[in-house]
């Protein structure tokens, strides 16, 4: 009778839960899913104009034309949100390239120009300032010169110096920073360009000669421009092979920048990509891979003089965001899912983004999220219709990410007809209370028991555990036992023996006597048959001593008639007949391949 009542109450509880879950399910399914992307914002860009002094005096400071490499390296290595322009001057401006010029365009513009004539720094700088006439966030001029403003006549020089000062003031007014790379000995007399740096908040780099421009370029790229790269290798010596693994193949463009002294006529690049372009100079090489198809890139370099090259990897990703949601009425929570793909629709969460590092913001606040099923999943509470603004951030990640970082989802809270609240199910609640009370009593009893046996090793109360174990006894013997006879009556040194229990021991219970027999250890120990070993939970071995022998585990003597767990890496010592025979048994793990 009591049993029947219990079953009835159970079925009522289950029924209640079932209705509750079904209602939730319909609520979720009924919610409309709508999302729309926001209007795109103009990405903030940086603009750099390199002003080159190509006057005769530069020949002494930079005989190798390393200054030309600076502008070309910047054009090749910087990502798309950096726009690089060029102004070169002699007596007048002799070469000019607008912002956003490529490495080839720079190369063509500088072709045929040598260090000659006088240096009209005023005209050069004025031209550079007029190039930077946009609203870009960061505007910079890098002036590479030996420092001297010198024209054919004194008047001409004065005029140029005056124009130079005006250009500096104009730059300061427009928020343009001028960095000056001054080559050779610093000039103390005459009209010089050094002051431009101080007046505009820029930096003055004093470089001994053109050879130092290699390091200058490296510093500009990595420190001043903060190129987001990861260091992927180094080549020292006359030849070397560099094997680079791209984090994934989802980028639009991967760029390998090799910086440092190199003589790279002999260079081989192996990779798979839609298009590849190599831009080279005396202190830099930039390998640009458009939509790489394989993540392996191998570069072989050979030179006649030792090289010292550091390789950096940078990448540009184009992405699209979309989002949807499902609404859970009961908790008034919208479970939002954000999907990020590249322009061809491949899920970018399959690439390096799966390792984390992405920040997700909901309505301007950063949220905890989890990546599951190719989505960023997060949730927010909405009691009424609202617009959820989702935004993604890539701070701290390597590479550049281009796309609309924000997407909005219109959350529509479904209107449901409120049901009559069901009356309080007293029976249901009384069952729950009784159940909780029973749990509390069991817990208190267990606590008292534990207190009584505190300080002792926890043994297994078989009256409780045994029926359960026998009922659904799926534990099997695992691991192996190593047996060391520490001491025997006859003082014989028995070699250590090992017995593999996994899948070889098809008994439910084994005894120490059986173990000794199986290991050919003729010790004839009285009571060994009453020491029982059987498999326990978590691959342990349960040991129960019913004999007169002393059994030690750790520093503790095991109680007679009680069962104890022996886990991997532990050992147990059996001592028979006052100090006559002593056996140590070590329980060890068996790896899958040893089984």
């Amino acid at each position, binding site marked *: 009778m009591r049993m029947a009542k219990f079953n009835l109450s159970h079925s009522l509880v289950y029924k209640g839960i079932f209705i509750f879950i079904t209602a939730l399910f319909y609520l979720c399914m009924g919610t409309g899913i709508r999302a729309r992307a926001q209007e795109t914002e103009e990405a903030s860009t940086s603009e750099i104009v390199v002003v080159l002094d190509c006057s005769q005096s530069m020949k002494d400071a930079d005989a190798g034309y390393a200054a030309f490499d600076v502008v070309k390296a910047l054009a090749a290595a910087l990502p798309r949100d950096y726009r690089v322009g060029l102004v070169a001057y002699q007596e007048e401006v002799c070469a000019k390239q607008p912002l956003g010029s490529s490495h080839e365009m720079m190369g063509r513009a500088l072709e045929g120009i040598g260090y000659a004539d006088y240096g009209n720094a005023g005209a050069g700088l004025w031209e550079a300032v007029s190039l930077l006439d946009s609203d870009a966030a960061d505007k910079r001029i890098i002036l590479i010169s030996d420092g001297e403003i010198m024209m054919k006549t004194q008047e001409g020089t004065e005029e140029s110096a005056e124009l130079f000062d005006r250009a500096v003031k104009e730059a300061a007014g427009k928020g343009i920073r001028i960095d000056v790379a001054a080559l050779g000995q610093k000039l103390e007399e005459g009209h010089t360009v050094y002051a431009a740096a101080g007046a505009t908040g820029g930096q003055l780099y004093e470089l001994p000669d053109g050879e130092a421009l290699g390091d200058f370029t490296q510093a500009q790229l990595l420190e001043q421009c903060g190129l987001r790269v*990861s*260091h*992927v*290798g*180094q*080549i*020292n*010596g006359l030849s*070397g*092979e*560099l*094997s680079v*693994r791209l*984090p*994934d193949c989802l980028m639009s463009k991967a760029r390998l920048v090799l910086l440092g002294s190199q003589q790279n006529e002999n260079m081989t690049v192996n990779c798979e990509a839609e298009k590849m372009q190599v831009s080279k100079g005396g202190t830099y090489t930039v390998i640009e891979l458009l939509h790489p198809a394989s993540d392996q890139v191998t570069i072989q370099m050979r030179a006649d003089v030792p090289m010292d090259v550091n390789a950096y*990897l940078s990448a540009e990703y184009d992405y699209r965001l979309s989002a949807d949601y499902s609404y859970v009425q009961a908790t008034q929570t919208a479970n939002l899912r954000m999907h990020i793909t590249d322009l061809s629709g491949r899920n970018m969460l399959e690439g*390096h983004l799966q*390792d984390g*590092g992405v920040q997700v913001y909901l309505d301007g606040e950063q949220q905890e999220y989890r990546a599951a099923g190719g989505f960023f999943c997060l949730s927010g509470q909405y009691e009424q219709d609202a617009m959820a603004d989702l935004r993604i951030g890539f701070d701290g990640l*390597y590479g550049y990410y281009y796309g609309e970082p924000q997407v909005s989802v219109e959350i529509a809270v479904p209107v449901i007809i409120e049901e009559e609240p069901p009356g309080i199910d007293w029976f249901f609640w009384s069952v729950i209370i009784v159940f909780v009370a029973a749990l509390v009593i069991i817990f208190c009893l267990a606590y008292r028991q534990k207190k009584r046996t505190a300080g002792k090793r926890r043994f297994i109360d078989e009256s409780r555990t045994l029926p359960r174990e026998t009922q659904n006894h799926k534990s099997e013997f695992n691991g192996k036992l190593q047996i*060391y*006879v*520490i*001491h025997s009556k006859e003082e014989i*040194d*028995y*070699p*250590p023996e*090992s017995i593999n229990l996994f899948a070889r021991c098809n008994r439910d219970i084994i005894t120490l006597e059986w173990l000794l027999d199986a290991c050919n250890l003729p010790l004839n120990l009285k009571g060994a048959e009453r020491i029982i070993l059987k498999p326990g*939970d*978590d691959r342990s071995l349960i040991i129960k001593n019913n004999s007169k022998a002393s059994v*030690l*585990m*750790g*520093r*503790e003597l095991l109680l007679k008639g009680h069962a104890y767990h022996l886990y991997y*890496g*532990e*050992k147990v*010592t059996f001592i028979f007949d006052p100090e006559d025979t*002593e056996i*140590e048994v*070590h329980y*060890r*793990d068996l*790896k*899958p*391949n*040893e089984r």
Partner: protein
Amino acid sequence: MSIIKQTNRTLLFEEINPEKPDLLTLVGDVRGIDSLSDEKIKEMNEALLVRNFDEFITKFEPVVYSFFNANNQKIMYTLKKPETITEDMLTPIYLNKQNDFLKMLMSLVEAKRSQSIINVDFQFDKLTDMISPKKVMEDIKQNRKELQYTYKNYAELEDGDPHKLDIADKLNVMFEEASVNYNNVLAMLPLAIEDIKTRLLLGEAEEKKDNTPLALGVLSMDEKGELKVLEVPKTESAELMVVDDNVNAGLISALEDDYEALNEESSDYVKALVTRTYCPLASTMVSNIDIKQEVSNYNSYLEFYKTAKDDFIKVVKPLIEKILGVWAYFEQYPSNLKGMRPTMFVTNVSNDMLVKSNNLPRLIAFLNTVNAKNDFDNTIWYGIVPSVSLDQNSNIKLTRQRFKGNEKVEKTGVNSVEALVRLLDVLKDYSVQCFFSYETGDKTTFNYMATEGIEKFEERCSSLTGKAFSEFAIPCIPNFTIIPKEKSGVILDKRMTVNENNMAELSREKEDIMKLWIDGVYVGAAYIAAGLVAAYQCPDYLKEKFKRNVDEELPGVRFDIEAGDHPLRVHTVMAKEITGFTNSIKNEINRRSFGFVFSSENAMLEAENISHIMVYKARNLMSDGKVYEPIYKTQVTTYIERVLRHATSDYKQENIVKFFSNNPSSQKSRWLEKKACVNAILGAGDDVEYEIDESNGYCVLNITFNGNVKNLEIEINRLNSNNRAM
């Protein structure tokens, strides 16, 4: 490297000095405990860990005890301190760098190394006579010169001069060194032998021998102008040969006092001998000498010296070979480098004792403490088991001994294969790679292997292959020869006879040549193999050898010594022994790539001749059925397992995923960045991937070495912790 600071600590399974603490004693009772305390490990390191050869000698003080047996009138030697003999009857002979026998052997290796001459051409006798009385005397003569000079300086200074005290300190040290020669009779023997020889054979000219007794004279002209040598009247005087009489008189009295103070039962004969040796007097030659008595003394001294030296060498040789082994281990790492210097932990207990069933748990407890923690400062990476028994046959004599053949002496200190198996079974659980070599002798040398091949060694290893521990067993062949058996004769001197003119002369009969046989001295290949592998773990060492492409942080665990020009750059410091192996022997070695094989081959590296012994193969005993596996694979696997365990907080699943991710900051990416380095953990063509077996709670690492995959299974701790929490 920041996690693991060393990958080359080596455990030497040898007993050096039974009087010193050993591993078993220090570990103590391990009943109920799995590991040892930090204090205990510190104490053990203080007693048993050595960082160089000098520290080894200081810590273990290898010693031989000698005592006299009145019944057979012989000196007895023993390596174990006889407990029944009182201290005052025992004379310990310390085997340190000052010991003439050890000094001779070490000079031999160094001379061979600098001359780069193979064994067949090397003049061993030039160096082996370092232990003859003549050489001992030469050493003393050198010391004597210094002693006299210093004493002269001392005597010249006024009392109270502070500089005099400094010189006195110096003089004390010199007297202490000299006293080694006169505080025991045995050490006096070479002195006495040479002394008698000097006095009796003074008339012998260098070129030819005159049969007339010697009488000193002066060159003069007689009345007719004819040249004549006139005899000078003999006077008994105590004149000194050196100019400053006072100085030497002082030195003589100082020596006499010192001798009397050190020897309770001093004899006048020995006292005179000591003073004669250190302060030669002009008068000695003109004294009345009982020639017959002196010749008889000389012969009996020589005989006694020969027997004593012979017995000493027989007893001390096994210990000397161990000491030379340790010396050779440390020699592989250049003394000027300050990087990851190899260190050695000596068990100092015999292996028969260590592998007893009741003692193995102590070794396990020790290894459990140093190798199964996430602290890698004390981790043992290598083991050395030298002198594994080669002969498994019994000593049944099939033939009657018609001629005196080799005596089948049961070699002491030889490790049985059974003991090795027991050790390997423990070492494999703690990933300790064990270098072992076979017992030394003429059957395990380069010469023997060049003629007989490696079949015998491979056959002897057959019982060790196909086992769980095979991966950790590295058979090292052949052993190194310091002195070959056939060239190990040392001519001490010739007997003396009295001729018809009542003059003493050295016998010219062949049977009167006193010769002793050292019977070959060898060093186990395991010491040198372990020393070399331990040395190339150090990035600084590799930097010195390769100059470039060496990462300064990473250890040489992945360094493949067989690859490319690696054996030519990283070679032992031992000189070549033979001209090389024949092609058929090399084919035999290459067929299955057996063992850690050294080769003595002609080789050139960038126009430079390599005159040292190189590594030909570096394999363990794990075989895929065709070839044996290179040793570096095991060490890389162990290294990755240890780094992974540390970095993933004992194999937490989520940390494992992070460890192997393609993120540039993951450990795997950082290793792959350094792919081009000689000491890269993952070299060109290597990779490491993982699969997680959710059902069993295991993570399988597939480590690819140049296309060959090696698996490593590790238990992820997600399953256990969850279950245990329940």
